[in-house]
């Protein structure tokens, strides 16, 4: 880890000056990033579908 990497939190994050790739500063919170991530909704949708199938079967 880079020596100046501070701890992260769910608050708006900061970026380090020592990076392997250019990181765009994020202006939204991590919660918003999570809820706006399409990848997140795929497992959520599959989980809900699984619960519905389970309810039907059981």
């Amino acid at each position, binding site marked *: 880890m880079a020596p100046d990497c501070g701890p992260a939190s769910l608050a708006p994050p900061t970026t380090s000056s020592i990076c392997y790739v250019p990181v765009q500063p994020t202006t939204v919170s991590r919660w918003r990033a999570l809820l706006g991530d399409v990848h997140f909704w795929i497992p959520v949708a599959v989980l809900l579908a699984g619960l519905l*199938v389970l309810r039907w079967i059981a």
Partner: protein
Amino acid sequence: MDRIAELDPARLRRLQGVGTLSGFAAGAWLGAAEAPTKLVTLGIPPVVISFIMVLGVFLARWSLPALVRGTAAVRDDVRQAPHLVIWAALAGCLWAVANTLTIFAIKHIGLSIAFPLWNANSLLGILWGTLLFNELRDAGRARWLGVLGGAAAMFAGATLLAVASSARAPGGDSLRGIAAALTAGALWGTMYIPYRKAYLTGMHPLSFVAFFTIGELGMMTALALSLSGGPGPLWGELAKSRAVLFWLLLAGFVWVVGDLFQQYAAKYVGISRGIPLSNTNQLWGLLWGMLVFGELAGGGRGAVIAGSLLMAAGAGAIAFASAPGREYRRWQEAGARESARYGVDASYVAARMAGDDAGTARARHTLLDWVLVLAATAVFVGSAALARVPALQVGWGWAAALTLAIFGFLFAGGVALWRTTRFG
């Protein structure tokens, strides 16, 4: 993306090697987890069996990380990428629902049809890995063929093995059974999205599993309460099961060792290769059943040998189709995308992806770690004192040989992971 640091090709080869070895070790340990459950005689509802196993899993998933890295290191990981706690718990929920569905699938259509259906999760894993995480991109035709052909061969082998190990034809509702098995496969295949997400964002496998199991136990408790008819009946079933509690907790513990290797496989070779490799657990489960518990004594060994050879050939094809440097670069791009989205330090993500973790090397243990380890040990010792060994014909020689084999994998995988990544 032009500033992504090139990973040394020799380092990449070592990471791929350790990931592939972890996949095979995962298969061996996940398969061995079936052995203690075979000691449990009939009369216990399947949901209760699943619930007790998850209790064992929960104990192992908090005590092992506490022992190896310390809970302080887990806290450090969470500070870096707190959103992954939610991803991990979500993966745990997916696992619990899938596992419960498999119980109904076996009940309605039998293991021979159900097992290959939910084992199709590896094909879904290849799809998600390619679509969402740049896996197999720029890998070249030969590697595509190796992974897809290998997964298809393993699927065919799994079908043969499942047919051979089918003991009796079920008399259930086939539509519900097929729906349950396919849904379980979809849930298990999708569960690897959070796995890959975590490892592209730098989370340590031992931290990920600690939060995974919270979702797993929470969801399993809700399902067990719902399907058993409430807390009273569930408690009654648990109390009746105390003589076999140890065997099921042990199965959960063994399963966790396998799952840890599976996590490292997902991290270092990706989900498109990691899932099929750990699906060799079916082969190991069958070896335990056949050699130790005398299953298939009445015949069917030809199909077993053919299925085993197909599975081994498929796994071999995948093992040889390791990611080249240009594909790894696409993984790094996916990691950079995650670090930008969630604001995780990019150098932290890149270092963790390359297996660089100083956390374990300077592990510091607190009182909480020792309390967790002692509490888990006390539960295991207490349940062992109540346990009874069922009167079963067991091939002890084969049991010793297979135990030696899985410990061989544990030793080889553990040494390789320590030397290459310090369990990072």
